[in-house]
């Protein structure tokens, strides 16, 4: 009986999505009749129940796919309305039919089946949206760790070193070692599991109006600076401190460390456009052209400095115009 029912069920599941609504009812009716006629023995009760719930779920998914285009608007509503959404009346009928066939409490089984259907619908909707945690993805990445004898010694030594350092301060060793050999696979490889939600960024506090710092504030700040500025523990920290202060250069050495020359090369070389204030003939023009030639070859000045030079000459010659006209 079970084989026949499954065979007929398969054929109907294939037929159901293809057929239109008119045809969908006839196989369903057939199914309902089959379920109603089937006689259930007490010993096989559980197996049958599982089978039937599976069948109902299959039916439900097929009907959902069939009705997806129509019910898509319904599914897109918020989760609150989804819970309140009434189940498909056909599913309800199927559930009632199954419940009637079972020997035990009809109403209880019916309610249980309906609850299962609801949950199933919720999970299918969530899965369609891609919101649930796929356990398979989680477990696929996890691998059973096997303690190798070679690494055992390293781990024991790690445990011992965690207790006390030479100075008596409990400082843990560098953090890169647990990452390096605990995970043979790297930490950032693999699909995102979407288990953890990002902590919502706290709203930035509005800037408090800062009044002029009082003497007590200055004293407090000085105390904090004195306490937090511990002497460097080793040469590296000393070098870091020096680099921050500016005593030590940053490596690899950047030749243009202090310079911020935003100007292009043509602004350095073609300085004739600044010569508009000068007379076009005469010794002054000759002199200024020499000046420009020299400035264009100078790699040490910035464009602003060069322009300042030329402007100074302009001002100077304008002041001496009377003298020049006497000559």
């Amino acid at each position, binding site marked *: 009986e079970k084989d026949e029912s499954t065979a007929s069920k398969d054929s109907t599941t294939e037929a159901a999505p293809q057929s239109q609504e008119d045809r969908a009812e006839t196989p369903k009716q057939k199914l309902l009749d089959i379920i109603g006629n089937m006689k259930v023995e007490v010993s096989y009760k559980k197996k049958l129940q599982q089978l039937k719930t599976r069948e109902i779920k299959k039916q439900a998914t097929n009907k959902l796919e069939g009705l997806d285009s129509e019910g898509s608007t319904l599914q897109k509503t918020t989760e609150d309305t989804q819970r309140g959404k009434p189940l498909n009346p056909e599913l309800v009928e199927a559930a009632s039919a199954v419940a009637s066939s079972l020997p035990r409490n009809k109403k209880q089984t019916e309610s249980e089946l309906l609850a299962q259907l609801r949950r199933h619908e919720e999970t299918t909707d969530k899965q369609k949206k891609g919101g649930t945690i796929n356990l398979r993805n989680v477990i696929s990445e996890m691998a059973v760790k096997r303690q190798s004898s070679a690494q055992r010694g390293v781990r024991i030594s790690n445990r011992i070193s965690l207790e006390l350092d030479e100075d008596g301060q409990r400082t843990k060793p560098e953090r890169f070692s647990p990452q390096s050999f605990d995970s043979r696979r790297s930490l950032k490889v693999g699909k995102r599991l979407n288990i953890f939600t990002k902590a919502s960024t706290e709203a930035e506090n509005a800037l408090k109006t800062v009044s002029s*710092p009082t003497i007590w504030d*200055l004293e407090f*700040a000085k105390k904090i*600076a004195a306490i937090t500025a511990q002497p460097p523990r080793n040469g590296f920290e000393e070098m870091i401190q020096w680099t921050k202060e500016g005593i030590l250069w940053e490596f690899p050495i950047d030749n243009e460390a202090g310079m911020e020359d935003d100007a292009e090369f043509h602004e350095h070389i073609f300085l004739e456009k600044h010569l508009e204030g000068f007379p076009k003939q005469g010794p002054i023009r000759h002199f200024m052209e020499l000046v420009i030639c020299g400035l264009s070859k100078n790699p040490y000045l910035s464009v602003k400095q060069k322009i*300042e030079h030329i402007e100074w000459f302009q001002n100077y010659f304008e002041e001496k115009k009377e003298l*020049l006209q006497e000559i």
Partner: protein
Amino acid sequence: MAASALGWVLRAARQVLPSSCTRQVRSYYVDWRMLRDVKRRKLAYEYADERLRINAIRKNTILPKELQEVADKEIADLPRDSCPVRIRNRCVLTSRPRGVKRRWRLSRIVFRHFADHAQMSGIQRAMW
């Protein structure tokens, strides 16, 4: 904030009053000659551009000579301490005007003292 306050305090300790009001100068320079040298260096830095430009007018064969004579007078009017020729490379620690090696800015005595105590990087007693 505290670091800047500390820095301000430190700088105040080494402050030299501007040349306009030189009443009482409190500084940590070795002696007064060193202080004067410091002032000359500062002024030379401030007037360097102007001196360069006026000299460019002076040392010329193109511009008329009258202009150059005017430029001569102008450069003579600048403060005396602004010319770089007046700067003396003194020893940084002892303010000794003579026997100063330029690379280390130290006089020969101080240099020898530090080199013998192995406090000069890369310096070794010569023997060959």
